């Protein structure tokens, strides 16, 4: 049996088991902010029993859709970056590589952008700033992969034949890059899911689509001792989804007949 298929089955099972207690017993929650002061989670007293109820299904859908939106943006940015590095001249290449390294250094600073966007309630900016947080890592890996598979002389050849950047991208690069780089879309999805759940579990950011798995964790923190599953069930669901996606990457590589393994 393929170990990755087994892992996929197991992670899906874990996700379903993780969600089941929440399905049976809905989670109390609301838009009241939780003050994470020392001692509060240890009291075990329900503080918001009369608050509106969060829907687990909605949270799951919101988590996955938000992460997908961020992943699409991350993938597009990474692809454009990699194409720019490979197609344009040495100076543009240096500037793009400099930007990538700088962005990798400022990942904590992106929090500033996300908070700023959340304060002004700009949903698109939240998604965009999260994509900027995730993109340097994905772009770096993707660039290495494309560089190994499509050396510079192919681009030079296309340029000599008189194609412009858009022509080279759509006629030459896109059909060749798609099977090579599609696994990085899933990698971007995993990173987006983890970053999104990190932000929402702190209760700092409300995402444009509404409450997510991270929000469920945030609301469950009050009763960590009495109802630990309110925190761990959505956590397991995040883990299961990320793991299942990770397990899918080799399968997609196999389906698309990518010659080398994902590094």
């Amino acid at each position, binding site marked *: 049996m393929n170990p990755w298929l087994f892992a996929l089955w197991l992670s899906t099972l874990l996700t379903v088991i993780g969600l089941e207690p929440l399905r049976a017993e809905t989670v109390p929650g609301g838009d009241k902010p939780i003050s994470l002061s020392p001692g509060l989670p240890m009291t075990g007293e329900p503080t918001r029993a009369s608050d509106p109820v969060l829907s687990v299904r909605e949270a799951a859908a919101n988590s996955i859709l938000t992460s997908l939106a961020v992943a699409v943006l991350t993938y597009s940015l990474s692809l454009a970056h990699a194409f720019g590095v490979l197609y344009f001249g040495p100076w543009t290449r240096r500037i793009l590589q400099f930007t990538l390294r700088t962005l990798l250094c400022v990942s904590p600073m992106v929090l500033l952008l996300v908070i700023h966007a959340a304060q002004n309630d700009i949903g698109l900016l939240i998604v965009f700033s999260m994509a900027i947080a995730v993109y340097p890592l994905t772009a770096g890996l993707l660039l290495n992969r494309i560089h190994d598979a499509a050396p510079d002389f192919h681009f030079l050849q296309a340029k000599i034949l008189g194609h412009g950047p858009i022509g080279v991208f759509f006629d030459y690069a896109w059909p060749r890059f798609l099977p090579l780089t599609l696994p990085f879309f899933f990698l971007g999805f995993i990173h987006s899911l983890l970053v999104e*759940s990190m932000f929402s579990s702190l209760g700092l950011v409300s995402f444009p689509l509404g409450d997510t798995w991270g929000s469920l964790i945030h609301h469950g923190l009050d009763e960590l001792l009495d109802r630990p599953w309110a925190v761990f069930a959505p956590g397991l669901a995040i883990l299961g989804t990320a793991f299942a996606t990770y397990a899918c990457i080799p399968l997609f590589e196999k389906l698309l007949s990518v010659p080398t393994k994902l590094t």
Partner: protein
Amino acid sequence: MIRLLTKHLLLATGRLLLLCVTIFLILRSAETYYERDLSFVEFIGAVFSGRLVRAPGLPPLATAFLYSQTTIVLALVLSYGFGGPLGIILGRYRMIWAQILGHLFISVALATPAFLVAYAVLYVSIADWGIFIGGESALAPGASPRTFAGQCLLLAIPLSFPGIALIARQVSQTVFNAFPEGSLTAFRSLGIPQRLLFDRVIASAIWSPLLRTLPFLLSLFLSVLIVTETAFFVPGFGYSIFKAAQQSDLQSLAVLSLWSSTALLLANSFVDILEEWLHSRNPSISGTK
């Protein structure tokens, strides 16, 4: 060497200047920026003296740095201490079950949100290690040093999970590339002592992945510290960032983020210098582009 240092110093200065200008411009347009009369040069001075951090209830910067620094060092020790040997084992011993178990561990560790591990440790440890969490300040006069060490170690455990996985993956890939399938049998038939070969090749080849992972690990640790320190109520750098963000104080948030970015930039430059220097001493080290 001087040329190398100058090159990287100039690059780091350029990056830092770019960051400072960006932050200065963002702050000038924000409503919660209190120091509008400061010029750019005065702003830089105020940032690095810590004068601009104004959100109430934040722990002192020195305390925050002590906590976060100790936690990050412990997490790095755990990550390299477990991830390096695990990577070498995975790359060297190619039994199917070891590969499956190793890759399963790496996948789970990479897919696990660090804050979930933090909450699990918090939940499991409440009964016995209650003194570590909440209220008690480890740096208060008379407090046990065990408290400080325990708090930092508890934070380092969730941080090191993805670190171990990343290092193990990079190292195993390097060892695997150094010894492709079939090469070990060929060496054995030629009578080359395997132990000698492994020691020499591994010792020179794994420096590159180990070094290259460092800036990314630091970046990851700094980001995740925001969650874990908040979960454990530890007055570190991440907790300060969270508190500043909770109070919507963009000024304090910008300064704290600028500090962390400067630390990352310096670490990045240090790694670049060390890698190029190692490469110049031993050109057989792979991976330097």
